[in-house]
């Protein structure tokens, strides 16, 4: 499977003189107990797990009320509250599909960052050989 980078307009600066950044976001379907959603997830080799916005948990029908809270830490040192959940992820392209179960961390709404789905090592990258070509 090959996916193009997604491009986003950003403020022009010395590091982004063209005003555009390329991000490895890929389309995949998240399946929960009562709902499914197709999202663009960021392939994040710096993340230990798959992290998903709690907002999406609502759409999937994942009840986070009874889930034990854990912590995640960004590279800036900020601690984020996450609650574990188990869902299924599905990658499809050109009629080929892979679907698997994964334990993921749902980020509390107050801790949400600028991205809703981070595809980290456990639950995603552990199942694939991935290469990146930013040209």
């Amino acid at each position, binding site marked *: 499977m090959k996916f193009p980078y997604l491009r986003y307009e950003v403020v022009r600066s010395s590091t982004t003189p063209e005003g555009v950044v390329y991000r490895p976001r890929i389309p995949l379907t998240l399946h929960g107990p009562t709902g499914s959603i197709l999202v663009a997830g960021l392939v994040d080799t710096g993340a230990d797990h798959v992290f998903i916005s709690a907002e999406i948990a609502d759409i999937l029908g994942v009840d986070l009320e009874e889930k034990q809270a854990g912590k995640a830490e*960004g590279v800036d040192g900020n601690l984020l509250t996450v609650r574990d959940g188990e869902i299924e992820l599905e990658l499809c392209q050109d009629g080929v599909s892979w679907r698997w179960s994964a334990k993921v961390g749902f980020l509390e709404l107050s801790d949400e960052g600028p991205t809703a789905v981070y595809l980290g090592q456990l639950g995603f990258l552990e199942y694939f050989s991935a290469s990146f070509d930013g040209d």
Partner: protein
Amino acid sequence: MQQHPTVPRKWAGKWIAWDNAMTRVVASGITAAEAKAAAELVGESKPVLDKAPPIDVHLIGARMR
């Protein structure tokens, strides 16, 4: 490999809904549910939802404790 169009700054910080082939953005919203509903209203039954970061944000990774 087909390239997707650049997400313009007008959608920065919002949830956006691409059409299923990701050839264009068909709707946006403050929440994921709002963007999904807006996409369905314009006839896109299987939108790809995406949260466009603010234009002054650069992304970094995370790790679990």
